């Protein structure tokens, strides 16, 4: 049996093992699941070494960019968790990651989720020179965005006018969820076709 054929058989049997989960938990799935967890953890460890540590740290240190000693030291602190007595040092590394992550996120989200979205909503509702449905659509988006935002108000009870507007917001949210769900159905079926095609074509040669 050639290596390639062996590989195809291995892949096909593991595919079936994972599918067997749909029936119920069973030894085949347990086997595949544990193998998958082990292999994928190993994969990402190697991936991180070759694509993160090597180019960002080792190559930089070899080029005498000494500012990269700081992440090396913080990494060492991180690993101190393995030694209970000095485990608290890892908090310094965690603090670095969380702090810089939070700072970056403020900027990113304020820009892409807030200002950009406000800007996209600001369109003219002047009906001259535009087809009526374009203006109507812009108006509906405006209503949807504002009522959706009102729904998210935490310090106002959903009663009276606020309640009414929030209710409209819920309508938009529900339509949005339904549409997004319906939209992905087709793409998800493609995935299954891909696997079935592998089994029927590459493995069994039926198709």
């Amino acid at each position, binding site marked *: 049996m050639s290596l390639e054929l062996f590989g195809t058989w291995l892949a096909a049997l593991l595919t079936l093992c994972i599918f067997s989960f749909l029936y119920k938990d069973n030894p085949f*799935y347990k086997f595949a699941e544990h193998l998958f967890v082990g292999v*994928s*953890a190993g994969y990402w460890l190697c991936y991180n070494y070759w694509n993160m540590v090597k180019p960002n740290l080792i190559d930089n240190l070899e080029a005498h960019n000494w500012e990269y000693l700081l992440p090396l030291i913080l990494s060492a602190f991180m690993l101190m968790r393995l030694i209970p007595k000095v485990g608290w040092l890892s908090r310094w590394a965690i603090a670095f990651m969380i702090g810089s*992550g939070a700072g970056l996120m403020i900027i990113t989200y304020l820009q892409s989720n807030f200002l950009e979205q406000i800007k996209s909503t*600001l369109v003219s509702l002047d009906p001259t020179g535009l087809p009526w449905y374009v203006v109507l659509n812009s108006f509906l988006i405006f209503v949807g965005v504002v009522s959706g935002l009102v729904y998210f108000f935490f310090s106002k009870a959903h009663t009276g006018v606020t309640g009414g507007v929030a209710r409209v917001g819920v309508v938009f949210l529900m339509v949005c*969820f339904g549409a997004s769900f319906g939209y992905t159905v087709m793409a998800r079926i493609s995935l299954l076709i891909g696997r079935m095609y592998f089994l029927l074509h590459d493995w069994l040669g039926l198709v």
Partner: protein
Amino acid sequence: MLDSILEAVTFVSVRYKDTKEQRLLRRELHVIFGICARQRLGFNLSVIRIRALRVLLPVVVVVLVILGATTVFPVGSSSSNAPPRPPIGIALQDRPNDAGGAIEITWEASKDDSRGRGTVNSYSIYRSEQPQSGFVKIKTVSSGKEEYRYNDEEVENDKRYYYRVTAETSSDAFSDSGVVGPVTASPQWFHSDRWNMLIALLIVSASVLTFITLARKGKDLYIRPIAGLQAVDEAVGRATEMGRPVLYVPGILDMDDVQTIAGVAILGRVARKTAEYETSLLVPVSRSVVMSAAQETVKEAYWDMGKADAYHPDMVRYITDDQFGFAAGVDGIMLREKPATVFFQGAFYAESLILAETGHSIGAVQIAGTAMTSQLPFFVTACDYTLIGEELFAAGAYLTEDPRLVGSLKGQDVAKGLAIAFIVIGIILETAGYHWLTNFLKVN
């Protein structure tokens, strides 16, 4: 073909000067040729034909003569050895909003650019530190555009530089723009395109911080109930009654994502409840840093509740960094440990539905929360309760009732109110034809 003939005619007749006459001539010729074309197609344009013929005949003669002349004595753009016309409007400036070390050179295409089917097929940029000599070629760019922009990133700050740009043909003929400059590069201390972000940041921060301060001073603030969060107690209680564990998944992204931070904060609250009820807790994670943070959080919760000995580091389990490997592992845990209550709080991708459907199949009560708009529909359909977007970030405040967190929610509401006001004003301005607010919001 038509265009090139027209080009040749206008070019020969009105050399080098793009004057009013040239444009008029060009338009006239277009009209005449247009009529010719229509006649060939057999349109009956008798009236126009007679009038047109009068004009047409001499013009046709002129055109034929010129055509003949241009083939015998090639001129202008059809010549291959004559130097092309130079690039125009060379402008230099220190590239704005950078850390220095760059000069931006812009110019307009030569009249003979290949874009207009001319002979220029590249431009070369030369740089020197003296205006008269020492020019070195730094870059050649290919032609075909109306305007060109090149950033020279190999300059030093505060030094004077001079530039020249040449238009070149394939047969090495070229013409020079002449020397322009001097220009110096320098770094900037403020990004001038980002005032809008600074103002927005200050407004949002100010409103959040103001209400945090007010709340800390004891101002009582109302927050409306959220169903998913009211259900937390009951859901943990259910697991206790059934003698089954609580499963908590803080998403699959790393600690630099704020959703994960929110997820871990909620985990702290849920862990207090499981410590109180002495229910076992399982926290599978897919990132090592999240594992560390989650371990710290759960440990603190158990210590706080005086149940230090009930805490075990294995409650938080690293599975794998792999998205679907993680999903396979969590599915396995769900099937074997049969948790009565499942929390999904954090950032999720396509694995959301795999996890939620498996959770449903074992009959668990599921409380999800994420800001991933693409995954919310799946949680909404497959889980019992779902915290939508901002509610995920608010959950910490609800569960702790820490006045500072509650204050921050009130601050967010004020920011939301301002956003709505901005939208209303902005739409009114847009409708009235004023675009400055929209332009101001554009972030670079």
